[in-house]
C-alpha cells in the first residue's frame, strides 16, 4: 500500500512539475490531466470512491477538456507569449504563498470529522452519508457554492453577449 502511495505521489509531483516546465501549452494541459488522474488515485487509496469518480468527471472530464479547447482554438505559440512585468510576477508569487498558507492552516487546524464516523461504524465514504452531511451539516456553504457557480455562469453569458453587440 505504501509503495503504491509513493508511486502515485511521484507521478503527481512529476507531472505537476512538467505542467509548469513544458514549453508547449497543450503538453502542459495534458500533463495536468495526468496529474489530476494521479490525485484521483490518492482518493481511491482512501477508499473514497465517490470523491475519486467526481474528481475524474469534474476535473479531468470537464474542466481540463474545456481548457484544452480554449488552448487549441487560440493556437498559442511562443511569439504570442507576453513578457509580464516584474511587479505582477511578484504579486503572483505572493498570492500563491498566501493561498498555500491558508491551505496549510486549514489542514493543521481542522478537526478530522472522520473519527466520529469511525466510532459510530458508519460507512462514511458512501454517497448516502456524504449527501446527508452536505445537506444537513453544511447546507449553507453548499448552497453558497451553487450560487457562486450560477454567478459565474451568468457572467460568462454576459461577456459573450457584450462581444456580440460590439460586433
Amino acid at each position, binding site marked *: 500500500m505504501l509503495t503504491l502511495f509513493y508511486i502515485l505521489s511521484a507521478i503527481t509531483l512529476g507531472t505537476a512539475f512538467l505542467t509548469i516546465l513544458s514549453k508547449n501549452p497543450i503538453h502542459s494541459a495534458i500533463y495536468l*490531466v495526468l496529474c489530476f488522474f494521479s490525485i484521483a488515485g490518492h482518493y481511491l487509496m482512501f477508499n473514497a*470512491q*465517490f470523491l475519486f*469518480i*467526481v474528481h475524474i*468527471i469534474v476535473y479531468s*472530464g470537464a474542466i481540463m*477538456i474545456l481548457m*484544452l479547447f480554449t488552448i487549441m482554438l487560440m493556437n498559442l505559440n511562443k511569439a504570442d507569449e507576453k513578457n509580464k512585468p516584474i511587479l505582477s510576477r511578484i504579486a503572483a508569487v505572493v498570492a500563491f504563498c498566501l493561498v498555500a498558507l491558508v491551505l496549510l492552516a486549514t489542514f493543521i487546524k481542522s478537526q478530522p470529522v472522520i473519527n466520529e464516523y469511525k466510532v459510530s461504524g458508519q460507512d462514511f465514504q*458512501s454517497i448516502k452519508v456524504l449527501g446527508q452531511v452536505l445537506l444537513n451539516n453544511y447546507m449553507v456553504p453548499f448552497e453558497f457554492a451553487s450560487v457562486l457557480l450560477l454567478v459565474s455562469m451568468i457572467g460568462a453569458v454576459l461577456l459573450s453577449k457584450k462581444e456580440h453587440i460590439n460586433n
Partner: protein
Amino acid sequence: MDQAIIIEKGIFIVVIFAITMLFAMYETLAERKIAAWFQDRVGPNRAGKGGILQPLADGLKLFSKEEFFPNTENRFLFIAGPAISMTTALMTSAVIPWGDKLTLFGRDVILQATDINIGMLYVFGVLSVGVYGIMIGGWASNNKFSLMGAMRASSQMISYEVAMGLAIICLVMMTGTLSLGEIAAGQHGWRWNVLYQPVGFIIFLVCSFAETNRTPFDLAECEAELIGGYHTEYSSMKMGFYLFAEYASMFISSTILAVLYFGAYNYPGMDWVESVAGANIANIIGIFVLFAKICFFIFFYMWVRWTIPRFRYDQLMKLGWKMLIPLAIANIIVTGIIILLADQNL
C-alpha cells in the same frame, strides 16, 4: 478462496473482452448488410458464405495498409489518440451486470466484473475521459480539418453528457442506488424502468446517439465539410482503432440502454421458469435475453442511421441545450414530486 476469485474474475474479464470484440467486428458487417437491406442491395457477400468472413478481410486489409505519419512533432500524441479511444470504449464493460448469479461447481459466480457502489458514475467518468482520445488525435494530426472535426465531436459529447446525466438522475431518485447491479436486480420480471421513466429513456437514447458520434449526430465526420473529421490523417490500424472504438462503444451503449431502462437480464415469467427448471437455467436464459435486447438496440442504431438525415451543427446544439436539458430538468422535478406524493400516501 482468494485465488479462486482472481481466476474466476480473470476468466470472466477475458470472456467479456472477447465478446465485445466479436460484437464490434460483426457490427461492421451488420451495418453494411442492414444498409444494403434498406437500400434494396445485396451487400458484402464475397468473403465466406453470405459475407461472414468480411470483417476478417477488412481487418487484414487495415493491417496491411501503409502506416502514414503526418508532418507533426507530436508523434506520441498522434499514436495515443486512437489508443485512448479504444481503451475507454472497452473500460465501461467492467461494471455492467451481464446476468444474475450462476451456481457452478458449488460456487456462486456473479456475472459482473465488479459491482462498485458508484457504477453509474464510473460509466460517466469513462465517457468523459473518452473525449480525450478524439481531441488529442485531432490536434496531433496537425491538420485544420482534423482539428475542427475533433472540436465538433468533443463539444457535442460534452454538451450531451449534461442532458444524459440529468436524465439518469431521475433513475437514481427512483431506485435510490448508483450501482448498476442493484438497478438491474430491481427491474425483476416486468418492472422495467422504461415503463416508469419514458421521458428519461428518450433523452438518454438521443444523448447516447450523440455520445457515440452516430448519425444523425455524426457531424464530426461530415464528409462534405470536413473530409473525414478527426481521423482524416489516420491510416492503417490506427484508423481501424478509431472505427473499432466507435463500434465497441455502440455495443457498450446498447448494453447500458438495455441494463438501465429495458430490464437488463430480467424477462417476464422468469419466476415461473425458475420454479420449473431451476435458478441456473432461468439465469442462463436471462443472459440470452440481455444479448437479444443488446442486438435490438444495435439494430436500432443502424435503423436510425438510414432513416434520419444528419443534423446541422447549430440544430444539434439547439436540440441539446435548449430542448433536452430543460426537458430533463422538468422530468427531475416531476419525478421528485411524484416520489414525494407516493411517500406521503404510504
